[in-house]
């Protein structure tokens, strides 16, 4: 699950208006990623969504410690503080090269950012 805003990973987990859910196996996407609009923007709702969707990994921007701990307690891997276009981030996740704090190119202009 990637928390998104526009074409980018949302700067904040708790303020993400949308999430992208992708399923992959052996470095290949199994289906077209699904986008879900979050009804009420809140960290709790996104945590709940992650549990309901049974995701293995959450990729996000800034996340509060309590939500990070909650997700890891629920055995969900959290890759946080990621900055970049979600397409590139997803590709890195599929390739198993994505790490917390990663900064991708293409985040330098206001027009492309939001």
């Amino acid at each position, binding site marked *: 699950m990637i928390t998104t805003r526009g074409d980018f990973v949302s*700067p904040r*987990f708790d*303020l993400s208006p949308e999430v992208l859910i992708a399923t992959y196996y052996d470095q290949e996407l199994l289906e077209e990623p699904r986008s879900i609009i979050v009804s009420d923007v809140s960290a709790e709702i996104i945590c709940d969504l992650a549990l309901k969707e049974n995701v293995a990994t959450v990729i996000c921007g800034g996340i509060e410690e309590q939500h990070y701990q909650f997700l890891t307690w629920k055995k969900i891997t959290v890759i946080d503080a990621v900055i970049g276009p979600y397409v590139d981030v997803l590709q890195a996740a599929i390739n198993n090269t994505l790490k917390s704090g990663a900064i991708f190119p293409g985040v*330098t202009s206001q027009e492309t950012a939001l």
Partner: protein
Amino acid sequence: MKPESIFHVSPVFSELLNAIPHGIAFLDTNLCIVVMNRLLEVMTGYVTDEARGIYSEFILRSNLGSKNRMCREVLESGEAVSDDGNIINRQRKKIPIHFTLSCLHDEEGQPAGFIIILEDISVLKSAESKHHGLADETEILGHSPQMAKVFELMSVLARTDASVLITGETGTGKDMIAEALHESSQRARQPFIKVNCGALPEALLESELFGHVKGAFTGAVNETVGMFRLAHKGTIFLTEIGDLSLPLQVKLLSVLDDQEFFPVGGSRKVKVDVRIIAATHCSLRQDVQQGRFREDLFYRLNVLHLHMPPLRERDGDIRLLLDHFLRQFSDKLGRGITAYTKKAIDVLTRYHYPGNVRELRNIAEYSANICQGKKVGTKDLPQYLFQPSETSTKIAAAIIPPILSPVEPPQSAPKSVGNWTAIEKEMMVDALRKTGGNRSKAADLLGWGRTTLWRKLKKHKMA
């Protein structure tokens, strides 16, 4: 003049920015970061070199949404715009912030960029919540004479700038004391950086503390400033200092002496102005005797010493803390639990709390979650409280009397930490003497397994 050119023309300007006690960032007209001052680097967890050119919202992570709205207001009115909000930094901490955004103009009067000032208002917010009667989670509670001494000493320690060593068993609140000391010191508006010396391997810890230059080792693709430089003008809190390796102890000693150091792989000395607060749950004096801790560093850190008494020594505080935490969790969960039953109080006040306040807090949280009525009864308490373990009875028998005895003043901190080890050793010697050196019988006498006795004998170098 564009913000970029200001810094190219006048590098001294960045020094000026670093001297201002608020986070400051210069943004270009596309709202991308041009430069951040040191305090904002600490607040966000990003250094300017990483953040330069990146859209500011990705770095600041505020809850004000897109700053376009604020920027439009600034451009239209020509005046600075302020708003309260918060940021979530790289360390996953939410910080309440008062934002102020102003426009920068070039020589022709055209907008050349923005300056954004972030004022940390955590202290103000916590004072507000106190004013509104909300329980402050960071408050240190205690009415016992032992804690009165700690509070008295804290007010003295906060006024000085010397290194402080905090000792005490696990869960006694060493971290909270360190933060409270920083908050009440003259460095309160500067960063407070906490480093757990036991959490990282030696090589990583050195880089974490002192930073490294690009290419210092394989994988060092970027320069990092290190915690000491991040804590410049503030306080660095080194917890579990007893776990620091001997080579790093040497480096730390030189920082304490000269206030300067070489980053890993660096050839230029870096000067810092940092107050050091160290904490440990083990006896450093004993570590010194056993050659695990440098004597000179021990005396350098031990300028001022504060010992946190274990909860079992704090007369009357158990009841106070039980009520406080029950009220806190009850409010949080919206349960309306008012008190403990008499039986539950008897059990809770008799328990010896090896995990100290942390354990007591967890018990209160458990009770508040489990209790279905208005009062917490014995059935709502964790079951382990009713199963006195062998070790707990031994501890209760062996530790409590000497500590409560008037001969041994409870505030003698390192002694009471060292005492348990000495008592344990004495108990084993006694048992072995009584059983004529028969280990199986000695283990039975102590109520331990034979392996436990063997392990402890080995620990005390008696095997």
